[in-house]
């Protein structure tokens, strides 16, 4: 179906150009086959790439998860946060600090997620009564506090970071070789993405969208706006924390830069590059961003400057990201076809 010609209302900003009819099937398979496609495509790419690009892709899929968790806030719920790196960093530091424990790698990820959820709930509760813009400022402050704490708290080792974080083994498979770690991380990422997709399509996810679009109306029809916002913040924090744990295992080192303000900005740029509105937009944007970063600006000393210019260009020219550009192209194509 396409936009009606009866009443050509102006497109509402950032709204999708199409409203797709809801799936007829009782069992929605998207949460299963979409992550599977994601897994297969990235893995196929992984095995044809040279090792240095394999390394980039290995980080990119972790960032894909991280950017999707930001999408939960910006895209699904309409919560603006400028300190999302804090949760990624908290997750990474949790895994790093617990490295002496004789746990399996999955237990570390669980702990990373859990600790990040606790942090997110605390911040969410403090900020619960704040308006949108003030909340955005609060997240920025909290992010910066987390960053500064790494220098203040001796056990966090300041700029040196914490290293020698073990990868361990899962089901008897040693994760030290890059290929085994690839399989481990892509499977974890795909499963979490599948769970997120399921949540996205559930009434819970629909309610978050409703809050994003009109919080007053959402409350009027009985959606508990405050608690769902808090739940979304906790979910996003937890997933970011899990991604952070994975990142710590991947690189075996954690430094304050995982919590930095610039990194929070990078996550926003990744998600924005792909498009915040679609489920897969942020993930796509993260992978794209990693490769642009590696190929074009690999050794640039003007990283921050270039980052700012990219962000400004995306915001001003393509506010709905790569997915938005695709949708617009599809729209044009459909229109030209219907004209014939």
């Amino acid at each position: 179906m396409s936009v009606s010609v009866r009443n050509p209302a102006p497109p509402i900003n950032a709204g999708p150009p199409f409203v797709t009819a809801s799936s007829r099937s009782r069992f929605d398979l998207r949460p299963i086959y979409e992550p599977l496609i994601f897994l297969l495509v990235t893995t196929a790419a992984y095995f044809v790439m040279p090792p240095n690009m394999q390394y980039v892709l290995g980080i990119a899929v972790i960032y894909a998860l991280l950017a999707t968790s930001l999408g939960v806030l910006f895209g699904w719920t309409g919560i603006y946060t400028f300190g999302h790196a804090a949760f990624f960093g908290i997750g990474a530091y949790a895994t790093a600090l617990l490295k002496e424990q004789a746990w399996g790698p999955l237990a570390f990820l669980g702990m990373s997620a859990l600790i990040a959820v606790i942090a997110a709930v605390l911040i969410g509760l403090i900020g619960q009564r704040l308006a949108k813009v003030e909340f955005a400022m609060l997240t920025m402050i909290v992010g910066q506090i987390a960053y500064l704490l790494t220098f203040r708290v001796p056990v966090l080792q300041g700029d040196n970071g914490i290293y020698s974080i073990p990868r361990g083994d899962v089901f008897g498979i040693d994760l030290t070789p890059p290929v085994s770690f690839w399989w481990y991380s892509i499977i974890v990422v795909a499963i979490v993405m599948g769970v997120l997709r399921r949540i996205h399509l559930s009434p819970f996810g629909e309610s978050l969208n409703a809050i994003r679009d009109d919080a007053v109306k959402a409350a009027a029809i009985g959606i508990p706006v405050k608690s769902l916002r808090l739940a979304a913040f906790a979910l996003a924090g937890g997933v970011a924390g899990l991604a952070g744990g994975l990142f710590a295992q991947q690189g075996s080192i954690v430094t304050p830069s995982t919590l930095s303000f610039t990194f929070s900005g990078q996550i926003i740029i990744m998600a924005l590059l792909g498009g915040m509105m679609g489920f897969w937009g942020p993930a796509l944007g993260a992978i794209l961003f990693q490769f642009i970063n590696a190929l074009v600006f690999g050794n640039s000393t003007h990283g921050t400057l270039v980052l700012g210019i990219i962000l400004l260009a995306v915001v001003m020219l393509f506010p709905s990201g790569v997915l938005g550009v695709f949708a617009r192209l599809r729209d044009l194509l459909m229109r030209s076809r219907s004209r014939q």
Partner: protein
Amino acid sequence: MTLLSTLISGVAYGVPLFLVASGLTLIYGVIGVLNFAHGSFFVVGALLVTTIIGSTVPTVPTFIIAVLAGAAVVAAVGMLTETTVVRHLYRRDHITMLLATFAILLIVEGAAEGIWGNSSRAINKPEILSGSTQILGTTIPLYDILLVFVGAVVAIGLFLLINKSTFGRSVRAIAQDQVMGEAVGLNTKRVMLLVFGLGSALAGLAGALIAPNVSVSPSLGHAFILQSFAIVIIGGLGSVTGSLVAALLVGVSEAFAVAYATYLTGFTFYILVAVILLVRPRGLLGSAKLGRA
């Protein structure tokens, strides 16, 4: 340390915070834009002064010229930002504007790194201002007295400008209702540009004034913007008076922490933020728009 000297050093600590925060809140109150790049403007002010003064010991006129030049250049940067970016996004949604100013923050900071490098710089104060004086038997640094003086001048000046001048009247009208402002024939475009310039100039002034007291590097803005964000929040978004009260509160409590409770140093303002947000989520003098500054 006596009570008086602690108080004065606290107020002096609060003044640059007030300058940065009042610029931020003024822009928000009138235009409705939260300028994330504000902290980077502050740093540009500080860096410019270090370049102008270099390693010399400046005379008072040189120092004044350097400080004013810093404020003026930053005002120009702010106005350039308004005309090239911010102005084109007024009709877009909130988040677009936040992201755009965030991008400008990255650009300005990146450019500052490119121009000035990452190393820290320190400059001298004019000779006459580097000493101290005796008031009621306690030693007070002269530079602190200068800061208190500048803070008072700016606070009174802003009050008069907003509440008593013709320009202030159009500013208040536009803060209330932009469309109405336009309808009654105000040049809203120009007023908004000037407000953006004025707010930025305040950030530049703060940076220029603080330069002799700290080591200046492009990342100086991070810690500072954080504190001024906190001040804007606890003062109430859009309230200049609120940011004055909050800045003094932060400054004085930090000075008392330094004097009497060293283990709290650097954390007082986080505590203040948390407490005030819990008690008064709209800030001390919170209102969404700038009614009366």
